[in-house]
């Protein structure tokens, strides 16, 4: 087992990967997300969304862009919807350049909801603008905080989860039910784009069973990547 308590950051001078963690407008996991990237060996910087829009900070200087968790715009109009609107209407060009350059984007929690609403996911055939999957209200009808076992997909091309076959993570959301048409789901499975599935403590897919699948996500999907 990894001793998380005693993990420390590596020496700064040896680190060459620069991660940008978004802040502002109700995002709230920026500090711990930045810290996690530091532990993983990156140099991470918290940057306000408006600093990217004003040009005070340039995406070009970074290798990883992180849409972290929180309640952007209070989640009032669907989780991540208004964050996607703000990003798309103001910095879509810089964002596409970033993707073109082969750099990495990670969306966690509210950030994942934003990526889906931006259309960056699932990104079939290089289409990064069409919204094809949705995250909607949990089947249990409420916000829920729980630790859930996850199954990692060893065949997925996802960079962040390489080598992760099983893990446990805390979920805290009210709108985490992954939903898409059967065709889209099938395509995600066939392409190996399903990165994480909710699982039972024994390590089998939860098959929709609450509380292991905490929100009713179709096919127990807890995370996807682009192809």
């Amino acid at each position, binding site marked *: 087992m990894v001793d998380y308590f005693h993990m420390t950051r590596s020496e700064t001078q040896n680190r060459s990967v620069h991660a940008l963690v978004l802040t502002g407008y*109700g995002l709230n*996991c920026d500090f711990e997300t930045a810290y996690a990237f530091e532990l993983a060996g990156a140099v991470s910087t918290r940057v306000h969304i*408006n600093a990217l829009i004003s040009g005070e900070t340039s995406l070009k200087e970074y290798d990883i862009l992180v849409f972290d968790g929180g309640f952007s*715009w209070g989640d009032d109009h669907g989780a991540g919807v208004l964050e996607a609107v*703000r990003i798309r209407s103001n910095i879509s060009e810089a964002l596409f350049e970033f993707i073109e350059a082969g750099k990495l984007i990670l969306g966690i929690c509210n950030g994942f909801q934003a990526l889906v609403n931006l259309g960056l996911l699932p990104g079939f055939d290089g289409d990064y603008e069409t919204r094809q999957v949705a995250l909607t209200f949990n089947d249990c009808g409420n916000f829920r905080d729980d630790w859930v076992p996850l199954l990692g997909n060893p065949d997925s091309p996802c960079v962040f989860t390489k080598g992760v076959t099983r893990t446990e993570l805390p979920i805290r959301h009210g709108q985490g039910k992954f939903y898409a048409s059967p065709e889209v789901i099938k395509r995600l499975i066939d392409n190996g784009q399903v990165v994480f599935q909710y699982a039972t403590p024994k390590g089998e897919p939860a098959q929709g069973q609450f509380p292991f699948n905490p929100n009713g996500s179709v096919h127990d999907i807890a995370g996807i990547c682009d192809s």
Partner: protein
Amino acid sequence: DFDSVLWVGYRPGVRDNPGSTAAEAVEDLLRIRLKPHEAIYTSKRYCLKGGNLSLDDADRIARELLANDIIQEYKVFSKKDWDLETGIGIIIPKVRLDHKPTVTVIPIHSDEALMRVSKERGLALNPNDVSTIRAYFLRDNVLAERRAFGLSAPTDLELEYISQARSDHCNHNTFKGLFRYRDLAAGKSEVVDNLFATCIEAPTLAIQKQKPWVISVLWDNAGIGRFNDDYHYVITGETHNSPSNMEAYGGAITGIVGVYRDPMGTGKGSKLIMGMYGYCVGPRDYQGELKPHLHPKRLLDGVIEGVRDGGNKSGIPTPYGQVWFHEGYLGKCLVFVTAIGLMPSQIKGEPAEEKTTSPGDLIIMCGGRVGKDGIHGVTAASESFSADTPAGHVQIGDPYTQKKMHDFLLEARDQGLIAFITDNGGGGLSSSIGESACFSNGCVVELEKVPLKYEGLDQWEIWVSESQERMTVAIKPEHGERFMALSEKHAVESTVIGHYTDSGKLHITYDGQTCAYVHIDLLTSQFPRWTFEAEWTPPEMRGLFEPVLSEPEDRSGLLLDILSRPNISSKEWIIRQYDHEVQGTSVIKPLVGKDYDVISDAVVIRPVLESLEGLAAAQALLPTYSQIDTYHMAACTIDEAVRRIVAVGGDPDRIGGVDNFCWPTIQYDPIDNPDGKYKAAQLVRANWALRDVCTAYGMPLLSGKDSMYVDGHLKGRYGETHKVSALPTLQFSCTSVISDITRCVTMDCKFAGDLVYVLGETRNELGASEYYEHFGYVGLRVPELRPESSMKLYRALSRAIQEELVASCHGIYRGGLGVHLALVAMGGSLGMEIDLSRVPTAGAEQDDFILYSETPGRFIVTIDPANRASLEALFGDLPYACVGSVSSGTDFVINGLAGKPVIHLPISELKAAWKRPFGSLI
């Protein structure tokens, strides 16, 4: 496909959060800016289907479940009346005030005239204050100074300012009052002069001298303790009872979001790192004849959701809280909210806990805009609930706007831009500027500069409005530009509305006209003290006695039923609605044990991720003991909070406390409050316990608040009304620093074969216990704390935990040893075999006494048998005993004093009983 349609929309002026975020998105998308008179409003439409639902049923659903008429309107349509084309049509709940802002001069030719105006305007001036106020405004020098600015008799704004500042909510007149205390049994009388000074301030200041970790107490918005060399933590607690009682969701969200502004406004500002909650409500399944404004179930649901949205959307973990059900809270519910923050110990080389305003500093208001909302909230909180209570003080908090402001202000703080900061809570600008101007000794405020939600507010309304999500900040003029640029980057509105002076005067203008000119020191002097008659009748004289009750036969069935009692049973459904993982700091989580479903004694966070140091936090409530003696209620409540901290590994010598009193009205009135003298004596006694226990434990009070007037007048079956008073309630919160979080322990037993110890003595103290309550008794022998011997035990236990001798540790709280042994076993999903004959007792020589007595000062610990000698060496001659062991099966077995099993149950059955009342809720 539906049978009827319900439409629910906000009333004009009610905060519409989705409406305002929609406006932001529309502006982004269309690249436009909405004009001042343009806005977006949201409402909800519900389509009902169900063959047997009549329109009356639909109306009832709307009225009792979906809409609260204090903040919302609703309409009901049958299918045939619903126009599919136009729907509800366009309903714009825009505030239109066709009103020119006007300053009104109040005549003060007699005390009666002023009192009349006070009643008419809802000023809630205390009759004792009226002559002082009049005398001030009639003073020759005052008249002359005022004449220079065109003023004579006081303006409405000036009286509002005085009324707000003098309200019990802001000024704590009750706690600073004079009590004539008589003990009717002893026939002795004494004068208790100022509970705050004698029971809170004096002990805390004495302890602060001995404990340098106590950084800042008793003056700021929250107290400050040292976390480590680089950081301080900040804590305070509040209540939001009256608003929550009327609009549960709005009241609770405004409460939690509001208390978060206290640490933000402490010192030069702190980052919020944790929230806690406590709810006291009527029974969730109440079916009695009294009609509270909201049924307890609906009220509790709304309160839970309000704190959920307020905490979660602020990105602050809410890992700890408690609920207490009792019919006394039907009159007014209690909603306790507690906030903990973290600040660097220094900002640009200056102590972060220090702040001041200086002449020339800009007064800046940040955050939300000002509307009519919340006017007279403070004065309404200083009265009991009645049909005339103005509904206008109910608001809906906006955590999104506040989160943006929080992030902005921390960045401004770290750049060294903030000279002074405080929040706009009760009393609005009147309090925040009034209090901050005391440091520089004066201010000039230009009220027309205050940004408004809509036009048409009178000057006094702008001044006292409690519109939420606002902070008042003092900035040096040379920092103004940087501060404003940062504000814009964070999409936060900030406005310069005046500057501080050293004129000795609070000077307020509107378009150049003076509307207030008052001596800053008026409020700190000259007002008469409040006085109270307090008469204590000891419990024997009140006719309380021990019930005549034989030992039960079906002890297993009894334990299961006690575990199923609402105040004992699992509250997992509430805990899981609250994010306790955000910020990545959780160490000891609210739910622990093998299946993560048993409730922890306390929580521990690691607020500085790079450090192994932790902060433990817990709270306690034991209001039922007030039925016998509030002294012991308070002592046991404080002790429970302390033990909860010690149980997880908190350092007993670094515990800080926060007291939150909620009390029924104590001013005697032969008709309206015939038992007022007794209630006043109850308050005195609780404060004595606070003083005694804090002194004995060496525990400073980092912060505290009081909320009086917890009474309600409820309609009964025949249209009559009944006054319902809450139990005198003290919520006590504790924090302590943990030097190494890897040594923390949880309450669940860990391994079969481990030994089970009970620490502390069990006495025959079942008065007001859960056990007696189960049978409908109160009893007489209330649990009594022996603080000196208890503290010795806590220090020994703390050493045992630090030396890693203990596998699990759990305090014995409400319900007694039987309930808490069961919880330890349930947590570990392991059986236990216990001999009651081995439990250290004094005078509790009966199985049910030992199992259900609620004597404070006790713990259950389990240890590896290899640690037996080391552990016992630490405890020496303190009362402790090994009472049994953890077994490998799942049977929970308790052998009685006669040596035979009196309880034998599988763990699964215990857990099912414990989860029975609320286990199906999500």
